[in-house]
């Protein structure tokens, strides 16, 4: 078997999330160096505050200020910080019950080493220099040798409250397409289109995914198809896609390559967009260094009979 292909794959999204009244007050408070909790149905003060009671699911709205000082309830020493975590030097993950709160908040504790951390340790918030209304407005916690800090007297009402957060998320993968698609991509490098045939129903799948979706069986017999094919159906694209250097309007089509039992899709060129039709015979156009056909163009053959491709629509 040929070597399996691999490529880096980055999945990255800026998630834009709107806040409800409680989350908005809490995160706006952090921006103003104020910590707010919410009073639960049983009278407990929850920090960070939630909009619905964790036990009764009642709506919670009664905001209560708590101190920026508190006590570690459990901890874990992280000697190798990972991307995105609050500190780049070794730190302790901590759950902290702030003075005045009955529940604990997860964050990082900046400490010289694990020997300096224990459950029961007194800590205080170290505020971030630039604050935007996000949990990261707390830069981290730091040891605090003293009494609970005084409250600011906040009522939870702020000018210009934050209404949402933008949470960036990035995950890095090393993608491998598996056996069947590796073989398909390797063939494309030789400008050949190779599908796979189902051992039971004999259909040829292009591109192959390793299984016949009708029979649920592995496909292993490789079958070269095309290069010519028939347009089975198409659409006219009128809106330019971002990062795509193709003039609109253009035609995107399903093409049944000769010998294939599944249509693949590609752009049609070399013909005015309004002259493309079902049954049009086409062939691939390769450009230097490309790993797949740039587009398909008419071969000049007579159009295929509808009956010849109607099963592939």
């Amino acid at each position, binding site marked *: 078997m040929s070597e399996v292909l691999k490529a880096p794959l980055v999945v990255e999204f800026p998630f834009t999330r709107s806040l409800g009244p409680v989350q908005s007050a809490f995160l706006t408070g952090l921006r103003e160096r104020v910590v707010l909790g919410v009073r639960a149905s049983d009278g407990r003060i929850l920090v*960070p505050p939630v909009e619905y009671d964790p036990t009764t699911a009642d709506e919670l709205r009664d905001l209560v200020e708590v101190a920026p000082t508190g006590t570690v309830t*459990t901890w*874990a020493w992280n*000697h190798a910080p990972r991307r995105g975590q609050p500190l780049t030097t070794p730190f302790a993950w901590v759950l902290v019950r702030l003075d005045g709160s009955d*529940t604990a908040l*997860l964050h990082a504790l900046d400490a010289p080493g694990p020997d300096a951390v224990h459950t029961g340790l007194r800590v205080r918030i170290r505020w971030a220099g630039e604050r935007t209304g996000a949990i990261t407005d707390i830069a981290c916690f730091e040891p605090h040798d003293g009494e609970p800090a005084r409250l600011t007297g906040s009522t939870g009402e702020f000018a210009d409250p934050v209404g949402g957060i933008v949470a960036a998320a990035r995950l890095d993968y090393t993608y491998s*397409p*598996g056996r069947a698609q590796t073989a398909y991509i390797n063939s494309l490098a030789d400008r050949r289109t190779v599908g796979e045939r189902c051992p039971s129903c004999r259909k040829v799948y292009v591109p192959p995914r390793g299984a016949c979706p009708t029979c649920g069986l592995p496909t292993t017999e490789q079958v070269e198809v095309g290069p010519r094919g028939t347009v089975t159906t198409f659409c006219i694209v009128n809106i330019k896609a971002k990062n795509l250097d193709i003039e609109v309007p253009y035609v995107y089509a399903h093409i049944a390559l000769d010998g294939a039992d599944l249509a693949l899709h590609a752009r049609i060129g070399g013909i005015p967009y309004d002259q493309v039709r079902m049954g049009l015979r086409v062939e691939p156009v390769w450009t230097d260094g490309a790993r797949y056909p740039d587009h398909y163009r008419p071969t000049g053959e007579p159009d295929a009979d509808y009956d010849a491709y109607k099963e592939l629509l």
Partner: protein
Amino acid sequence: MTRDIAVVAFAQTDVRRTTDELSEVEMLMPVLHSVLDRTGLKTADIGFTCSGSSDYLAGRAFSFTLALDGVGAWPPISESHVETDGAWALYEAWTKLLTGDADTALVYSYGKSSPGSLRDVLTRQLDPYYVAPLWPDSVALAALQAQALIDAGDTDESALAAIGTRSRRVATLNSHAQIRGPVPQGDYVVRPLRTGDCPPVGDGAAAVILAAGERARELCSRPAWIRGIDHRIEAHSLGVRDLTDSPSTRLAAERAGAFERPVDTAELHAPFSAQEVVLRKALRLDDSVRVNLSGGAIAANPMMAAGLIRVGEAAARVHRGESDRALAHATSGPCLQQNLVAVLEGEPR
């Protein structure tokens, strides 16, 4: 209306650190064929199909629809999917069979964690406002739970090490496990958890077949009857929970009837050593119960499949006559956030 529903077949892949040469459907297909072969059923004979998986693991959108290629879903089948462990897919299939709409169900799940960085991927399931922006990885959260248990006097580092050691020792008898036999306890990953306290990251898949009533007896000489099954969730905020206890596991077990009579076997889904301490306490398991004879999740933890494998392993022991009443547990989320308990019984021999 009540119906007796049983697990009648179970199959799983070997769990491996990477499966680069296989797409997800290529990894899954042999397991689907194997579990169908055990019953002689074809896809067309199956009344309902339900799967569990997560696209985040391999970073591949709509992977569960591609995985359906391995089932043979044409003509269209009755099908559903859950974005969590396959044990919850089994729960959905069980309810479907209870309605009488189907007599047999195929349940499968798979996880291909090797393409990504699992510790980071799992941060994306956390509260997006207060927690996910801090990127606390899965080992860090489990370590907070372990330290809470140590502070409470429920365990210590050597007791935790013993859990991992015992699990991997019995896993030598499980050809599917990823880590079989002793490994060094190793350095801290996130203190107090060391390498030996953490599950290996691996790729794998599992499948079971459920059948109702007489159909179950036709398909299996000793069906593993589901006497009860229930799942419960806890508050999502870690700071609200008592991390040394698992009230959701206890409640699910109560509702599943686990405490009505003793079980002889238990398969616990405890990816981290300290979580076995929590579960044994919540489920009131004493030394008379054979726990995790498969080696458990600390020997092989394919995401989305490891919980279903617990049900499958417990059922397989009933099938083989090695257990008369077994408890299976599955978990999802950080620090045992969500828990499922099933009680399986064989008929008297």
